[in-house]
């Protein structure tokens, strides 16, 4: 049986945030702000998820004048399934709770 390593709480949080956006695109900075995580945490997670095919990326097609096009992110079909699997509340066992971001992990 292949053992799948459970993603870190930060990765779960990114997956949950992208899952909430559904088909809509998200910006990296907005994810950082919403999750209270630094770019140094969020971007490596986005890179990993993209390389594994869980996240789709695109560039803004119509950026505001004078600003460069921003990179956009959303879950792929496989990513949405993965996000549902890892963000689903685990069955209660010996008082265990769902993963949470520890204070100061940002």
């Amino acid at each position, binding site marked *: 049986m292949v053992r799948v390593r459970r993603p870190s709480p930060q990765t779960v949080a990114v997956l949950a945030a992208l899952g909430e956006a559904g088909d809509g695109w998200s*910006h*990296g*900075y907005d994810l*950082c702000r919403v999750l209270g995580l*630094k*770019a*140094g*945490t*969020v*971007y*490596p997670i986005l*890179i990993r998820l993209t390389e594994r095919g869980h996240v789709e*990326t695109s560039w803004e097609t119509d950026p505001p004048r004078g*600003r*460069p*096009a*921003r*990179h956009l992110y959303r879950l792929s079909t496989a990513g949405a399934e993965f996000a549902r699997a890892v963000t689903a509340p685990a069955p209660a066992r010996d008082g265990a709770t769902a993963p949470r971001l520890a204070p100061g992990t940002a």
Partner: protein
Amino acid sequence: MLAVLLLVVLGMAPLLALVLLVTRLPQPDQRPLGTRVRAALRSGFARPVRPGLVALAVVAAALTFGLERGYLAAVPHGSRWGFDVALLAVVLGPAAALACAGLSALLAAAVSRARGFGAGTVVGLLALLAVAAGSAAAHLPLLASYRADPGGFPVVPNLGEGDLLAPFPIFLAALVWAAPWPVIGAALGDAPGSRHPVRDGSQLLLDLATSGLPESRSAWGAALRAELANIDPPRERRWFAVGGAWAAIRSGASRHAWLAAAGVLLVVAAASLAASRWSLAHDRGGVLVFWTTVPNALLLAVALATAWRTRSFATGLRAGVLAGCAALVAVLVVGIPEAVVWANQRAGYLTTGDAVPPDWQSAVRDVLRPEFLVSILVPWTAAVASGAAVGAALGRLRQRVVA
């Protein structure tokens, strides 16, 4: 033979700088060379560079002043601490010059991103001059008072008469060795297609951190920079830029880098063992010279090959540093038991082959002396940086040729 190897490794940076100057200066516009040099000087001196250079000279002077006082206070107590303070200070001179080379290359890269190769080179060279001027301004009065009354200064057995302050002129002389790095930094930082004014320090930091990413990650660098351009509050910009720079800098060491580091560990360990046993059998003194020269070639090769493959200076540097850490582990893993073997055979200290250690503990402590470790790490660092720079330049040249 070993000296030739060291010269070849250390000669790479000046050679690359020369090639860059020869190939960059006649291009890309048709203005006369003199006009372009004057324009580069003007641009290189323009604000905020001038006050920055003055600040750099003042910091260099203050640091030299403080370090000289610290050195004079510490140098008589070296034997009590188990290492030679004077020798450590002598080898820290080239180490400090290496740090200045890195700083000047960084400044040159930062300025060249906004103002071009010529201005970046000028700023990097001026930064080195500012450091030299500040350091000399602090050192010369002390040197004059030492020359006038050497009796008022401590006497150090390992340094000849009148040489007590030698580490500081050695640092100033070693700064010449840093001279190619502003040229290399300016060439690495200059991206003629994407030259743009720098809005603030946050943008500069993120630009520099993401400019050396390998091709497979360059889109992510662009994504971070575009995101920063859309953030306005300065505090938020700093917060995002620092996080983004950190993400770019630690952007995963590839499997190649780990494999290369493992290979370096094995080769350096085997070669160190062979060198130690050969020296022991032929009574050829210690292996310190071997450690300061032979692994250089390996580290240079790793950094060069990685940077050439990825066309990224930062990736080559990271792979080289990882390989350097592996080489240091190999040196210690082999050096410590070998030092005991040398001590048991009363053959002298493993590093230099002179004197017979009184016990095996002294023999082991000798391998770990900070002055020897620094003297090993300085040429290794130079080899890694040179390899990464040459590899990135050759990789980009190959890309241009293929395109």
